């Protein structure tokens, strides 16, 4: 079972600020060095291709070495964040951190997140962080 945290996102001018905020939310739960590696991996991944999926869902992620468990930080934004352009506006941003060696775990988490998002239907902007945490816990369990 991954570590799950749900937060409400404010209005960010862009994707980078949003990512910075979400990574910051992990600071109390992750060693600084690991967090720094994760940050680098997440940005590198966004540089390769956008992690915006569909239905307002973006799943930024990083696979790094020495991560004991999987981490999922879910952020809900009522206004949406350009990911990274206006036509890909994300209301639901779910940051996933997985150990480098656990490819299958990453795919499994991602598959469950996408299915869970589909099960919500319509816009997910109205959902509260608590509801989101519960939903994700059920989905990822």
């Amino acid at each position: 079972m991954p570590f799950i945290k749900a937060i409400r996102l404010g209005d960010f001018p862009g994707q980078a600020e949003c990512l910075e905020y979400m990574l910051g939310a992990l600071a109390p739960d992750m060693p600084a060095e690991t967090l720094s590696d994760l940050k680098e991996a997440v940005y590198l991944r966004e540089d390769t291709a956008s992690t915006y999926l569909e239905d307002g869902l973006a799943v930024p992620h990083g696979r790094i070495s020495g991560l004991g468990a999987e981490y999922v930080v879910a952020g809900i934004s009522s206004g949406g964040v350009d990911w990274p352009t206006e036509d890909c506006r994300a209301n639901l941003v779910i940051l996933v951190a997985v150990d480098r060696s656990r490819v299958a775990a990453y795919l499994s988490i991602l598959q469950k997140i996408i299915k869970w998002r589909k099960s919500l239907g319509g816009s997910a902007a109205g959902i509260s962080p608590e509801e989101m945490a519960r939903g994700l816990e059920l989905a990822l369990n």
Partner: protein
Amino acid sequence: MNGFFKFLLFARIRFSLAGRGGVYFYAVLAGMLSAAIALAFQFATRLILETLTGADGAGTVSSFLQIPPWRRIFSLAAGGAAAGGILLFAAKRIRKSPTPYMEAVSIGNGYIPVRANLLRSAAAIVTIGSGASIGREGPLVQTAAVFASMAGRRLNMSTPRLRLLVACSAAGAMAAVFHAPMAGALFVCEIVIGIMSMDMLAPLLVASCASYLTICAVGNPSPLYEISGAYLEINAQTALLSALLGAAASLLANLWLACLAKCRRLLNRRAELLPLRLAVAGVAVGAIAAYYPEVAGNGAHIIRGLVSMNFSLGDVSAVLALKIFSVAIFFGMGAVGGVLTPSLTIGGVFGFIFAQLLALAGAPLGTEEIIGFSLLGMAAFFTTAAAAPLTSLMLVLEFTMAGRMIFPLIIGVLVSHAVSRLARAKSMYAAEAAGGVKSAFNKPLKDVKVGDLFRKSDNTVAPTTLFRSVAKIFLKNPDFAVYVVSRSNRYLGGILRGDVLAFARSGALSENVIADDIMRSDIPTLSPDTGIIDGVKAFSENPAAEEMPMVEADGKFYGIVNRGDIFMAFAEISARSKFGG
């Protein structure tokens, strides 16, 4: 994934053609292909024989017996001139030399040029069909090997696999010609590869059995010269006589080898004269065949005559001398054909004469013993001629089914082999297996690099390739990994089958995951310049790795090396180094 799909995937992975199972799968195909080629070759030579002689074409000698002497001369001369014309055309128009299959397998990389070799096969069909005193096994095996090499290259096989496929086709062709699956596999192992190991012998046997089964299914499955009445009593006297015949046959074989080499050196000089030379050989042998039609063909008719006791001592002595002359002149003049069956014939005749002389000296020999000594002479002679004791033993046993002869045959073959070693005789195949093309298999172990054993990988994707495309590659061909390379072909990492196959049919992931997400950058890699010993070590330290990517010093992706291939090559090359091969 549903159960059935899981089962299909499991089966596909378990029996992946990239693994050891693939070797056997291709061995079966190579065997069947060789049998088909053998049948086609036989059909083509018979057609030529019928056209040139106007006889029914059941066999060379029986056809020659049906036609007047002048037509025998015409058939051989016309066939020789036509074959020479084809060979001349090939020599002038095709730049690539026709690598013999022995060279391609023994020291080469399995590559056999197609056009030059097919033209040589056509020349061989014409020569053999016209009744020349030369065997069909050599060109037939070569033709099968050409097709196997072509197919292997189309399938993007690595060097060790391609060599093995060519070797399998050779074993299959030998099995088809002599109806001798065990001898076919041994022939390739002992004579062509030069190393006897189960890793090699097993696929060769699979190929030769597949070939023999095909022949049985569509043709006549009986042994070539089934002999029930051949027996030498097992006692000290027989052992002594067998040893004596083995030694004498070995000495004669040495002379035979020297004669062949001398004829090739003296008679086969200017390529432009090939049609004329082969026509002259045809006229010369045709003139002999006018009186002794037995000298025509590969000698199978003589072997049948021996085992049926159709010859007197005088007849057979003349036949022996004339047969040696006929084979030597065709071979020397540059005809394309084998000398295996002619060698067996000469050995058989020699054994027959040996027995007849013993009988004249007062030894109480019956028909069984005389035939027994003929078989012994055959095996002992071929042992020295081909430097292949096991093949000789098994070949004679398989194509005669004279199992009771095994003890004297072993003695004769062993003594012949020992004498040939003492005389430092070079096999009649030595030149064919030591040509110009070199590969990893002709280097000392320490000089062999893993780059010599690589195969190109079609399984490469860009970092941004969608999961859907990666999954498609795995579903189509569940190899160990798909490799991720940049646009400039820089190696970035690999996607392992074990990581992603369970998700391969996931619709949710197909558009939302890219290769970069699932790529591992910690897969052990090898440099093409890594020595084979270090390569083997790397695979031993990573027992789960079925293959490893090869990355050049500048980071470029070079290809992959397969675990089975590297271990197979290591075993063969180290065995050769051990035995000084």
